[in-house]
């Protein structure tokens, strides 16, 4: 192409950062996500009140200077609960997604690389088996054996995430394996593992990023569902999902009890989605105009 060789030789890979700084959706998403992560970290060292401290005379107060987000039916400070709840919700969702990616992605890539083999069949049928049990059921099983806790909720949601990623990755990778550039890599003597990491994974990254943001929001909701039936974080440890669940009988009396954790979930998910969207564009050389 007759495009002049823009002064690129000196700044090849660093331009990725430049592209990131110029993508508004990435910046907005990263800012929101960073805020919530910060909130979770801050909660370890500081909360305005003890998150479990009850103050019955001041129950169900609205938003005020003393209690920024008001108080709940036991007079606990909602702002403090949100801070600590961020910890639980984000940690559960993040680790659960991490488990899903860490195990599901390699499984999917392996199945695609050995497509049609016995190994492929075994991996995918085991995935079907896990998929056949709802996360809730797995959680009940695990809780029955190990007792209820946030850790067990993470394991249950994580296990549920594995087949989601394995299937997605396998399907996306399969269509890539038929492409000519993969054939070219095979002609260059590269083995399936190397091709999977060097060529397949970067090309399905956008699909993966989108799925991560979806699974993350599902993770927060799943944690809420587990907490709701008493299988997640145990009281008095708050989580956004549990706060949401607890508030539903009081929704006409004190709507802020439902609105605030609900909005927190919405904004976290929104932030992650925006960041995921931005990341997808940044990683795709065809879309990042800044580097042409």
């Amino acid at each position, binding site marked *: 192409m007759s495009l002049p060789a823009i002064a690129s030789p000196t700044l090849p890979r660093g331009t990725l950062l430049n592209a990131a700084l110029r993508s508004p959706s990435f910046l907005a998403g990263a800012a929101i996500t960073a805020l919530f992560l910060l909130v979770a970290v801050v909660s370890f060292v500081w909360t305005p009140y003890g998150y479990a401290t009850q103050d019955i005379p001041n129950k169900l107060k609205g938003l005020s200077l003393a209690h920024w987000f008001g108080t709940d039916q036991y007079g606990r400070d909602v702002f403090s609960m949100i801070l600590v709840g961020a910890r639980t919700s984000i940690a559960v969702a993040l680790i659960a997604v991490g488990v899903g990616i860490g195990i599901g992605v390699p499984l999917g890539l392996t199945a695609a690389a050995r497509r049609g083999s016995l190994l492929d069949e075994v991996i995918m049928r085991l995935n079907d088996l896990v998929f056949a049990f709802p996360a809730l059921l797995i959680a009940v099983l695990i809780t029955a054996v190990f007792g209820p806790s946030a850790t067990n909720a993470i394991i249950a949601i994580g296990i549920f995430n594995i087949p989601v990623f394995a299937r997605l990755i396998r399907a996306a990778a399969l269509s890539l394996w038929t492409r000519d550039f993969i054939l070219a890599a095979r*002609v260059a003597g590269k083995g399936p593992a190397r091709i999977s990491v060097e060529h397949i994974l970067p090309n399905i990254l956008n699909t993966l990023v989108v799925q991560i943001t979806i699974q993350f929001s599902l993770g927060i909701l799943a944690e809420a569902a587990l907490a709701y039936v008493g299988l997640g974080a145990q009281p008095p440890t708050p989580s956004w999902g549990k706060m949401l669940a607890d508030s539903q009988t009081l929704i006409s009396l004190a709507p802020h009890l439902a609105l605030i954790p609900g909005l927190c979930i919405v904004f976290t998910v929104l932030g992650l989605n925006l960041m995921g969207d931005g990341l997808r564009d940044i990683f795709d050389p*065809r879309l990042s105009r800044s580097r042409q």
Partner: protein
Amino acid sequence: MSLLEVKGLQLAIGDVKILRGIDLAVDAGQVLGIIGESGSGKSMSALSIMRLLPTGAHATGSIRLAGDELLQKSERDMCGVRGKDIGMVFQEPMTALDPLKTIGNQVAETIWVHGQASRREALAEADRVLERVGLPADLFPRDRFPHELSGGQRQRVVIASAIALRPKLLIADEPTTALDVTTQARIIELLNRLVNEDGMGMIFITHDLAVVAGLADQVAVMRYGEVFEAGPTGEVFRTLAHPYTRALFEASSHVPKRDPSLPGGPPVLTVENVVRDYRTPPKRLFGKPGAFRAVDGVSFRIERGENVGLVGESGSGKSTLARAVMALEAVQSGTITIDGQKLDPRDGASFATRRKLQVVFQDPYGSFDPRQRVDTLITEPFHLLGADAPHGAERQARIAKSLETVGLEASDAEKYIHEFSGGQRQRLAIARALIIEPSLIILDEAVSALDVSIRAQILDLLAELSDRLGLSYLFISHDLSVVRSITDRVLVMKSGKIVESGATEEVFRNPQHPYTQELLAATPHLERALAARS
């Protein structure tokens, strides 16, 4: 007055001008051939006539079909025109047909959608139309699905639904490009017959001058969204008044210059009695799996600096053979020797053997990882050198050298693949093959997806490289004229066997095997077509 009159048609998508005021005219019973390279606006002209434009497109000017202005019609009225007054045939018959509908239903749909008949009558009419396009009911039951037919038969179904209501105008957009030559010849014959029988007008869009020369009454040569030249076919081709038409004409019959002294010396590739079977699924539960012999006892050799063509239609086993040579597929018996080193049928090739062999694929868009930069892409074969792979400055030098060898610039190494055109990508593919200094390059339909002028340039480049570097090519193609221009020897493959081989000129001038004769007769030939006109 002409059947179709297009006057001053302009088309813009957003701010980009696609068509800059084109004039076309088609008479009833006549064929208008539109020729042009990719991006010339020929398909967009056809879609404008059908009013099937992408969102954001805006057309101005005038399109009159039998005096009726189409551009002023509402979308609802256009639905009544499409399929009824204007039929359309697309390039890829597999995607133009609904895979879940039987061929009878597919054709009948066009008929009853226009309220011309009840479903039962429509099915009966569909039956007659399919008969007309050469698919008699006793051989092709109407409850067949598209995947049960061959490419040519599918295209006949597409044609049947396009002509079912006897439209006044038929638009065929590259209808034979995806088909084999013998099939192409039969489809063109069919279209020609239908035009004569029904007296409809036809617009035939193609990039292949030879096809147009044999078929069209009028031609229009398009470029940059304009009609550069138009007129009766014989006249346009004989006078070649416009320089662009002449350039196209020359490019399509281009023969690169080659050094005749070269081939000779020890064989680079020896293939002996190679057999490749595929297992087919058993017909019954617990039945025995069947076998399909894709390559059946093939033997040949390629000498240093020799260019060997491998021709055959789809399904003849030529691609399977190429994959076996590349050690991407195991063979059941026989031996393949590359530069004196035998391929292991089980493990494939050692790195040392693979170094001798590289490949260039057909699709310039699919053969590069879109996520990597050119320097990473073209150095991929360095993997074969293991620890000996060049690093740092030497690597840069090798990249620069191989880019310059194929006529690109060293600075292109910093770019991503989407910044290159189709022809440049094919140059990059050649650069990737050359970087490891192989003795043999397999060119699998390497120029088939390119426009004629680009194709001529790539052929020149290939010929020059072969002479200068003593490279051998295995040139796989279904395009006989290209094979003729660049190869020393040719192998003709049919049903997994090599049915004829010999010096290229010899085989083309005096084909012995009936299949070769059939192939040659079916190949559109520019000069022959023009001679037949006068």
